[in-house]
């Protein structure tokens, strides 16, 4: 079937089978280098991409579901300014994910940052620094990736630090 979607800022028209998973479309058809995982739906969590600004397991998304969707992979994300916040947080804590899950974990953290900072401010709620982080939700999101290289306490710390950087950057831009 023919599917039109937006991947990494490019509007594409793809001819693929309707049930082909997004992970395979990205790897096989588009030659995306940032994605290497294929667990056949076992939810290893290394194939995370942002679908309409939310972290999602691309091996569980069939081709027909991406029609008209905006997909962002780590390949384009790593060139963005938002990535610097997370990269700095990794540096500040002195730990970072292993090469196998680095891309996926970074995208999950980005999704959490957008959720924790952006959404609340849009609704006129207090700024994220004044709001207590919803740790349970963060743990749930971070559990999307099952790689064994990092502990949850460390990941939460990275999210908190990255959120601090993100908010500071936003305040500077606004002022």
């Amino acid at each position, binding site marked *: 079937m023919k599917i039109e979607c937006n991947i990494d800022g490019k*509007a594409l028209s793809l001819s693929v089978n309707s049930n082909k998973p997004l992970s395979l479309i990205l790897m096989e058809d588009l030659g995306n280098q940032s994605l*290497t*995982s*294929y*667990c056949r739906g076992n939810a*290893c969590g290394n194939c995370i991409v942002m679908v309409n600004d939310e972290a999602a397991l691309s091996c569980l998304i069939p081709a027909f579901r991406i029609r008209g969707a905006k997909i962002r992979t780590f390949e384009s994300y790593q060139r963005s300014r938002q990535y610097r916040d997370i990269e700095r947080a990794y540096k500040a804590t002195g730990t970072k994910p292993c090469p*196998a899950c680095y891309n996926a974990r970074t995208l999950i953290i980005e999704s959490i940052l957008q959720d924790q900072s952006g959404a609340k401010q849009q609704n006129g709620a207090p700024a994220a620094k004044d709001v207590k982080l919803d740790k349970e939700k963060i743990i749930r999101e971070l559990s999307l990736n099952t790689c064994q290289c*990092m502990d949850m306490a460390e990941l939460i710390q990275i999210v908190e630090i990255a959120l601090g950087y993100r908010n500071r950057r936003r305040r500077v831009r606004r002022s």
Partner: protein
Amino acid sequence: MTEKRPPTPKLGTLTGLIVRTTVAGAKIRHITLPTLDNRFTVVGTRDIGGTNRVKAMVNSMPLFTSSAVSYKGQPVLAIFGPDSESIELAAREVVIEYEAEEGQEGGGATPYTWAFGSLEEATAVEGVQSIERTYRYGKLDTVNSTLSRISAQLIGGDLHITLPTQWPHHVRETVAEVTGHPKKRIFVHCESFHAPHDEMLLTPSLLAAVAALGSLKSGTAAQLFCVISSRRPELTIKRKSWYTADGRVHGERIEAEVDQGAALLFSDEMANHLAAGLTPIYDLEALSISITFTTSAKEPAHFHGDLGYSDAQACTEAHYNTITKLTGYNPLTWRLKFLTDGGNHAIKTEKSAKLKEILEDVSERSGFLRKRAAYEMQAHMKVKLSTFLNYSRGAAIACAPGISGFSSECRQMVQQAVQITLNPNNKVEVNTSLPASGSSAEVWKQIIKEELAIDRGDITFIEDCSRVIDSGPVVLSVAIGRMPQQIKRACALIKEKRFVQPLPICESVLSPRQSSAGGALFTSNTWVAIALELQIDAILLQPVIRSVWATIAMSKAPNEEIVRNKAHQSIVRALREAGGVLSYTSNFTIDIKIVSEGEQLPSSISSAVRAAVNSAFQSAVEQALGSAVTRFPIDGNVLLSAIRGKS
């Protein structure tokens, strides 16, 4: 404007699928292939132009089988077609008929022995007691989901192979031997990879040979998409120790059995690594080790992050923790009393004074003595925590020396080289087949920068695969253990000739053989001490790690941030693989302290970290349950049987 994309990135590239056996210990009677059109190419044993073997040092295993089936999942043939869906459909129609074949299992080889002192004399001491335990290190359920692409393409008589691999020269040799294609016309292009369990050591060579056969037969480019995983050898260690009431261990007899699956690969070297781990670092009069390798109808198992050193070392530390308990000592005091400089005859280590210091440091930081005493006391309380458990907390301490690279006894592995060239205008070119990216490469650059006083930006790695020299397989932490020594030596040789000879100056350094002074198999200048505290969840029956403290002593930390990150990752991975659940609470910490003294380049810490973490975890679970745990990894069944055993 909408950009149109073709369904596949390269038109005309054939995609392959390997058809594997579905049974083990049988014989193939007949293979029926479906009728396929000219878009498909089938590759089997008849298409092999060279030999049907994949070699690894002195041992080998078959590429395809057409008669005897050694294990379930053994490759039989490969089908190449236009896309992955059509070949999957074609593969479903392949019918393989088997006939039963008996008496395949249990093939063994001559045991490897390692001994010092006289056991008879050592155990004839008055008042000697003995303890005998069997430890089992079994299958590890590690899920690898990295989809690797292995492709082969014939361009003007040159065969270009693109794949992720830990040993590019092995790929080249295997492809040449299997296909019969001239070796000098095979070019291997390496892609980046992450292989914490050495998945990319031999399997990529096997897959490359299949892809090359497909490409040569069809005359077009061929590729395989595969999830590559490795199997851990199953290890059974039976130890009998003779000790006296004063805590001294006089003698020990160890019988280890290793199940390597269908093929015995790297067995000689694995025996050396196991012997190094099984030999205690404590005062011991006599020791006898016997290691037997057996085959079974399972997938071949060899490297799995290391060659069994960490499992063997973990077993030793856990066993000695049990002895300290039996003799009424606490593990720290016992270690401080019985650690000796000439303890481990298999590893030439640094002075034990340093280890004693870091053991005391880690114990103080963790409050180990207080916690251990409290948990021991509470375990004997009458009020029970739950139906199953009296009190479910445990604390343990363990230590290990870090080793890296192949042993001094390993003669089969050809010496691997690295070449450094100082070009005019102070540009440095490094020639090695090891991956030129990642934290290891950063350490190499740092060494070159310091030794030759040049900018980091002026250091480049040769990327042209036809010019790259063989630096051996990237296993056993050679990239951080052996390689910096070679680079430092090459830099020293260049420094001697600099300003004397005209540029360019080129120096090659072969891998140094491990020093075999005093019959030691390995040399180590790093120590790792770990203290760990855990709690058994009374409802879920899971060991929840509360905190971990680590002190690492090394001669010179090349980059403290990298060492800390690596140690952290190794601790978390080891704990998860051992069956531990890391606490989500904010109190949970992994506190790592690095003590670096001296100017020597350190050996690797990852094997030592893994060993110390595993033994501390095992001993802490034993304390929490109050009964012996001798099976690894620890899951719900192991815990339940330990609790039942106690009752």
